[in-house]
């Protein structure tokens, strides 16, 4: 176990190195108003972040990451473009007994810049790759691009309602899959839904609501009737056409070295033309990564990488992993353009960033030094 001071020293040194590369060092409050984070992540964040109650300010949260407060600072009047670096403790509840710390240091870098987003993606990735390598760590990178998946969904030949339902769950693979199975006709309609549709075909929603029993609750009859109407319409919507659905399933499981993945995507793009702009951006990013000295022939690409809850990435995503699969990623990051719009109150700016877990890095460096012994 590393002493906390070693972890902090490494974290601060990483942030200092990022500032040498042109970043401005920023600080963020440790105690943050909970409301913004709850609005962003929903109830899931309560299981992961420490909540407390301030007598005046209401629910507060111990900083679970730096991205949200750094974006808020930037949107409140930062320079444009801007590069920020930071170093400090973050707090995450661990639900299982074990040696994963609930308080640990992160060093990170965030780039806010309107032009050449693929170059910013490549720069963040390359800087993190370099600093990990400079510390003697050999880690396995994984990359992905949620933008391609989102473009594929937006381009489906189906209703906006179905596309919105899929997009809303892009970060929840299980529910996304369940929706896709239903929209493509692979999963049958639940019995209760069939029964409801039969009854809606014979009577109005208002009649059915009246028959159901005493009305209670805040959700109004109009809201219920509107969804009933939507269900009737959705039942008349034909399933996704088979080739399109097959391409989407194929895309979800695509894992290949980056250049091979690009060829594959180029191959399917004529059948799914909506992804062409996103695939073009992927190609530009690979060239930018190559210009930053990254070997894009071997760089692993997984189309579903980064699709976990408590995330907000909507483009390039990456992480760096140690050999031990039980360890969390040593570094991770990605592009989060939509988040800046959510937090910017009308303003937005393309942004990309990444963090390094300094404590894990210290531990791995210690292991490697020990491993180098006789």
């Amino acid at each position, binding site marked *: 176990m590393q002493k906390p001071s070693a972890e902090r020293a490494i974290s601060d040194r990483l942030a200092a190195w990022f500032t040498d590369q042109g970043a401005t060092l920023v600080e963020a409050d440790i105690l943050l108003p909970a409301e913004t984070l709850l609005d962003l992540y*929903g*109830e899931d964040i309560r*299981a992961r972040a420490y909540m407390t109650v301030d007598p005046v300010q209401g629910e507060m949260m111990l900083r679970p990451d730096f991205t949200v407060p750094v974006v808020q600072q930037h949107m409140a009047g930062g320079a444009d473009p801007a590069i920020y670096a930071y170093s400090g403790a973050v707090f995450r509840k661990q639900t*299982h007994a074990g040696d994963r710390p609930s308080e640990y240091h992160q060093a990170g870098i965030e780039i806010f810049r309107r032009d050449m987003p693929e170059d910013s993606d490549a720069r963040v990735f390359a800087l993190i790759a370099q600093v990990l390598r400079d510390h003697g760590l050999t880690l396995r990178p994984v990359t992905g691009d949620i933008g391609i998946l989102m473009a594929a969904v937006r381009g489906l030949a189906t209703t906006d309602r179905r596309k919105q339902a899929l997009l809303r769950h892009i970060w929840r693979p299980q529910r996304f899959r369940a929706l896709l199975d239903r929209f493509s006709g692979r999963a049958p309609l639940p019995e209760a839904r069939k029964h409801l549709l039969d009854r809606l075909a014979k009577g109005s*929603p208002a009649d059915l609501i009246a028959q159901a029993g005493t*009305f209670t*609750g805040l959700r109004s009859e109009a809201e219920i009737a509107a969804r009933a109407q939507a269900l009737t319409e959705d039942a008349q919507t034909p399933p996704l056409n088979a080739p399109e659905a097959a391409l989407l399933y194929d895309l979800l499981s695509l894992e290949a070295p980056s250049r091979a993945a690009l060829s594959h995507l180029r191959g399917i793009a004529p059948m799914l033309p909506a992804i062409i702009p996103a695939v073009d951006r992927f190609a530009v990013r690979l060239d930018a990564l190559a210009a930053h000295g990254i070997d894009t022939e071997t760089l692993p690409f997984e189309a579903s990488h980064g699709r976990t809850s408590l995330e907000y990435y909507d483009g390039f995503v990456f992480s760096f992993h140690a050999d031990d699969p039980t360890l969390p990623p040593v570094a991770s990051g990605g592009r989060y353009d939509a988040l800046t719009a959510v937090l910017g109150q009308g303003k937005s700016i393309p942004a990309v960033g990444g963090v390094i877990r300094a404590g894990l890095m210290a531990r791995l460096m210690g292991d490697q030094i020990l491993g180098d012994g006789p």
Partner: protein
Amino acid sequence: MIKIGVPSKGRLMEKTFDWFGARGVTLRLAGAEREYSGAVDGIDGVELVLLSAGEIPRELAAGRIHLGVTGSDLVREKLADWPSQVAELAPLGFGHADLIIAVPVSWIDVDTLDDLDAVAAAFRKAHGFRLRIATKYHRLVRDFLTTHGVADYQLVDSQGATEGTVKNLTAEAIADITSSGETLRANHLKILSDADIHASQAVLFLSHQAEWTADGRAILAALAKKLRVTVPKT
């Protein structure tokens, strides 16, 4: 000496006494009426501690009792990573109750989690806040909804009369334990068909945290033999 914690009143206490009694271990109240003091006959070295069922998970986790009888729902709700803290020795076959999610009967368009999730998204758009689910089982309900990918909801705490929160407009749905469903029907609520969060019953638990001396293990082995339960290796 090993300590066994048992619910201090009501049917849960009586049924627990019956279960042990049927296996030749007599648990009984001792001392004056209303005094929370118990005695154990039929085996040596076991001390009876009468506690509120809701506090037994905490006492097991702290290792202040070696064994305890309480609802499996309470252990899962109150103890993080519960299998690392306690072991289930035997389900006792009573105290059955299901933790479920219920919505107003007037929600004709809702029967499954898929529906609840879709309604939550529309509700948030229409009302500007996340759909409220009243419960006292925060951990169980949140883990369940996270696993099933439900979004745009919030849990609001309700320690009692949870079925009334919908009528009182402090929640849109509830997650609570039910055995017959009568209270739900009386409050114009219906159960989602695919949201069986946990089927609870009374269970005899063993504390990993308690101090298990050689003497204590010998007593446990003797007790386990009488009760016809298997003690897991620790």
